[in-house]
């Protein structure tokens, strides 16, 4: 199965994959701290486990970005 991950073509040796599996393969250690778009649509975090991706899909993920001045 070929999927575009963060704009880059990536081949997976599986017929089916869940979004959370893709994040694991991409070494995302804290999936709760990334936002995911599947084919341009945001996914809810609780759906990462149960949403499957198919050949030709585009998945994008970005880490939460924030900070503060607390020392």
């Amino acid at each position: 199965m070929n999927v575009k991950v963060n704009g880059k073509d990536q081949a997976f040796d599986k017929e089916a994959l869940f979004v959370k599996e893709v994040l694991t393969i991409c070494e995302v250690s804290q999936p709760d701290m990334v936002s995911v778009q599947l084919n341009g649509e945001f996914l809810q975090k609780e759906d990462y486990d149960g949403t499957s991706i198919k050949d030709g899909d585009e998945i994008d993920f970005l880490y939460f970005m924030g900070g503060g001045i607390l020392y």
Partner: protein
Amino acid sequence: MKIKKEISDKIIAHAKQLAPIEACGYLASQDGIVCKHYELINIDNSEEHFSFDPKEQFNTVKDARTNGLDVSAVYHSHPATPARPSQEDIRLAYDPNISYVIVSLADGKEDVKSFKIVDGKVDPEEVEIVA
């Protein structure tokens, strides 16, 4: 990190424009040199905190991608504190692949520093200003 002087100047100007609110954005590079900055909205609108809006974040990254650029760093300002990551910055630094740039305006001096932050470990990066 190599950064064009005009971009360094622009992120300092962004920090000054929003002070005392924290400014934030992305830096994009081509051939290893930061050549574009994207000013993003600080949805916290705070003097002590910043957060990106995920929708704007995705739109920005996709724009950079479309233009053949790599989003290589995130920047934010410390209007009144030094250019080093706070405990909160370190706690919230989840992306191991990106550089974290801080623009300080503390004591009326402009300072731009960059760091890699992985698993709570902070490593300063040399910032080289290029023409």
